[in-house]
């Protein structure tokens, strides 16, 4: 397990992150962290649109348990930065109702583990109302939630459940791994008219990268090629998107050129770049922090074999978290999530 890769201040060159979908010169960019990027998008939208407000547990006076909304309470006031009771179902449900009434709520659910207390509102209500009403009533909400383990928080605070939500028609599920994507995707999510699950990985908040000064947005459902290569395709999102880049560096020392694709969005899912890549490399490794059984990597593996079977020279390899409740012990926890080495090993196995 390589947690230090993800918590260190400097990860891969930020320019390379975004080169594939928005080339810009460093002089026209500013460096910031993922956390700053999310805060910036929230601040922009609060400023630009009086209908936008934030609500959630400890986002106000406390500043947010992951410090994303620090200072917002003083800046925008308690009516627009609403501290709520610890009652996830009514937090999400009231956000749905407020959205149906013309407001634009952005909810912080602290962690994806707690979102399970609101899963009735998310799955049975937010995702269904537009359809059940025959297109009359839409639910423009953004639900921010932190996913992932790696901080010794134990079994109830360390799950990766984003793929569950990605199974639900009516929801959009985005997983930004860089400051560029965090800013662009949050802007897009707030301005769109649909229910968004905005997944933030706790270990990525401090990652730095460049974002353009010029205004831009990043739509849901557009994967991005982070690195070009002809020998093997490495697919991931959130933390594994970063592990894949480091794995590509290691493989490059042996002359193996890996193509690295960051999905960025699980629903809608854009596999076009993956299929195109597999047609060149003929080999693919899919990695994610989530459990192996029934994981999102299974969906990707299936679609790859359905759409590019004739191009595959080896079975699709999956690199997933272990099928266990997250352990507390640092030593055990490091075994529970994929490492760069796991990905390198899987890549060598298909070559």
């Amino acid at each position, binding site marked *: 397990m390589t947690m230090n890769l993800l918590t260190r201040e400097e990860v891969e060159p930020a320019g390379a992150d975004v080169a594939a979908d928005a080339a810009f010169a460093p002089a026209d960019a500013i460096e910031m*962290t993922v956390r700053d990027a999310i805060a910036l998008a929230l601040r922009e939208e609060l400023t630009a649109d009086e209908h936008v407000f934030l609500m959630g547990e400890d986002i106000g006076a406390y500043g947010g348990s992951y410090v994303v909304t620090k200072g917002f309470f003083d800046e925008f006031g308690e009516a627009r930065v609403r501290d709520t009771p610890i009652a996830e179902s009514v937090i999400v*449900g009231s956000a749905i109702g407020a959205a149906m009434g013309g*407001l634009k709520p952005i909810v912080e659910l602290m962690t994806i583990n707690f979102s399970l207390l609101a899963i009735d509102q998310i799955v049975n209500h937010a995702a269904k109302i537009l359809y059940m*009403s025959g297109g009359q009533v839409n639910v423009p909400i953004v639900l921010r939630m932190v996913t992932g383990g790696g901080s010794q928080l134990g079994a109830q605070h360390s799950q990766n459940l984003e793929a569950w939500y990605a199974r639900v028609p009516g929801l959009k599920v985005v997983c930004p791994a860089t400051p560029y994507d965090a800013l662009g995707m949050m802007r897009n999510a707030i301005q769109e008219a649909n229910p968004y699950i905005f997944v933030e990985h706790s270990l990525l908040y401090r990652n730095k990268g460049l974002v353009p000064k010029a205004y831009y947005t990043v739509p849901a459902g557009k994967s991005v090629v982070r690195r070009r290569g002809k020998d093997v395709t490495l697919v991931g999102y959130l933390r594994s998107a970063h592990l894949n880049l480091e794995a590509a560096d290691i493989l490059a020392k042996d002359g193996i050129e890996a193509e690295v694709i960051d999905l960025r969005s699980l629903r809608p899912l854009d596999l076009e770049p993956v299929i195109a890549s597999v047609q060149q490399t003929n080999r693919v490794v899919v990695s994610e922090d989530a459990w192996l059984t029934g994981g999102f990597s299974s969906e990707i593996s299936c679609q790859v074999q359905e759409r590019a079977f004739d191009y595959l020279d080896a079975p699709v390899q999956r690199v997933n978290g272990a099928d266990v409740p997250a352990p507390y012990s640092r030593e055990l926890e490091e075994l529970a999530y994929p490492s760069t080495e796991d990905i390198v090993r899987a890549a060598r196995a298909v070559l």
Partner: protein
Amino acid sequence: MTTIAHNGNGVVNAMAPTIPVSPTSMVNAVTALQHSTAVGSQPSDSQLVEFFHQMQLIRRFEERAAEQYTRRRIGGFLHLYVGEEAVAAGTINRLRSDDYIVTHYRDHGHALARGLDPHAVMAELFGRATGVSRGKGGSMHLYDAARHFLGGYAIVAGHLPIACGLGMACQAEGNGRLCLCIFGDGAVNEGEFHEALNLASLWKLPVVFLCENNLYGMGTALAAASATSELYKFAEAYHIPGARCDGMDVKDCYRGMGDALEHVRSGAGPYFLEAMTYRFRGHSMADPELYRSKEEVAQWRKKDPIVTLREDLIGRGVISEQHAQQIERQVEDEVESAVEFAEQSPNPDPRELFTDIYAESSRSHVARHSRSAVGETTHAEANA
């Protein structure tokens, strides 16, 4: 109607006599409730005639729907409102046209009381393209955004949090608009009920919580499901004023709703109204009714809200027997016309399967403003 006094400090005092728990004894207890004669609390005679028409419409609509269900023209679940008509007529007609309504899955009566076109409601039950939800919602999910009728919901208590949010939107407008949230006695044991009441009271949200207590959550008697049989007393714990009304008497429902609206429109926060009522038919068409006796049902049928209102109107000379029959014939024609419309309406286009999953436009009702470039923001590194 039994009332709860609100002492102005957010504390309510129950003055209600203890009402027996068993459904058969409840029927007599409800009859014995004292009715207020306060000025302005009663509907006018002409309103009562309209209510009679509307309640008759709901009754016949439901009976014809049941008939169409047995002929397999209506599928899925069908939850009928027969017996509970006074609650819808007595409460929903007191709302402003811009007030929001969210309700549970026994929602046909509420929809018709709100003025949804019976043709389009029946067409929805038939699953046709002309239905209020274009055939995609069905009996349990009736919507009419133009009438601010924002849905029947089929997860017990799931819509109570949504009512809070609609209340937040109303509160932001600050013009007295509110949300009526209708649910059954089965909802009070769900966590979402308690989360919603707490938030509504905490934020003083303009929501009327209307509990249609028909004494059964599906087939489980209230006494077997809830630690208290006086459901309005849950409100007390959240410092929400609560009251009970006779749900078999449209006048008492009207008056109870009047108290609720007066409180909520004043900006004082939510109100809890419990209407004591009874469904004459099973939970759904699939219900063999093994959990209650025919005698119990017969006893409640003696309190039929439509029969009672009819007798009152004729007895007081407000309308003649002839006039009552004329209304009944008119309703018969309306419902027949609705059934014919539903029958003749087209099914949804197969392409509709994949529409309305996502809204395509951005939030067009909200004006977009130009945004500053990143470099102009001074807070970007605030959390670095």
